[in-house]
């Protein structure tokens, strides 16, 4: 019984491809974002929009590749908790900037 369990776990725990791919993707996205900014060859709007999109992809990589967001039996509730957190965060940040843009 014990042996079977160990075998089963080893079958699921070979080379950590998922983590290596996650690392390579996150390093690549970081460097692309840096290049877009320090090359100074794009408009401000394009630069800001693209680095924000890259950051969102990076966060998704962390959540899915490293944090195993969708593995538990309670995955639906985990996704609702974190999704609602991001929704509230986006509302607070975008809403504050939007309102304060008219404060002058």
């Amino acid at each position, binding site marked *: 019984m014990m042996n079977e369990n160990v075998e089963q776990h080893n079958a699921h725990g070979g080379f950590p491809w998922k983590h290596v791919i996650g690392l390579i993707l996150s390093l690549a996205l970081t460097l692309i974002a840096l290049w877009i900014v320090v090359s100074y060859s794009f408009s401000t709007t394009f630069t800001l929009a693209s*680095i924000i999109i890259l950051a969102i992809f990076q966060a998704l990589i962390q959540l899915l590749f490293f944090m195993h967001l969708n593995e538990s039996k309670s995955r639906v509730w985990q996704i609702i908790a*974190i999704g609602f957190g991001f929704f509230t965060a986006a509302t607070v940040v975008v809403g504050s900037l939007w309102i304060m843009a008219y404060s002058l």
Partner: protein
Amino acid sequence: MSSVASNQSNKPYEPLEYSTEDGRLRILGFWIFLGAEIVLFSCLFATYLVVHSHTAGGPTSKELYDVKEFMIETFLLLISSFTCGLGTHELRRHNAKGIIIWLIITLLLGLGFIYMEVNEFVKYATEEGATVGRSAFLSGFFVLVGTHGAHVSLGILWMTSIIIQLAKRGVTAVTARKVFIVGLYWHFLDVVWIFIFTAVYLTGMVL
């Protein structure tokens, strides 16, 4: 071999940290906590972004931020998130030694990050006169980045205590859940840093 196969089809593979209802619910609870942390940080981000241009004649973000320094900080934290993930990978193999080794590497990278950040703060304060009270921009900056740094410092203490517990008790349903949750916390700090890297440092170079 066939018994293993039938075992897998009857009962899907379930990691040890989810094996008890208690463990599974605590992990869910920690996700809810992380949702609340996202909201906490979002308030600090909103404040920083609103006051970003309010420098009161003091140093601006373009004058302060140094590409080389914040890139080193970013890579230290990104790679530590990866090594922490390898700790969780070893956890799935029930290999206590492997978990401890990867978590210690994670700790060292985390300490390197804190060292860089403290250096950065001290340099701003002593060489540029950029202290927390100098301008609204700098208050927003130090509170946002400092709160993240405080979280990383707490994470280092927490992870150290988990390593000690793991060395004493080995991989059990309880220690597995603890290793998994401290890993979640560490990856979450990297998620927050990605947004600091983007909204504070990179944006500060543009605007």
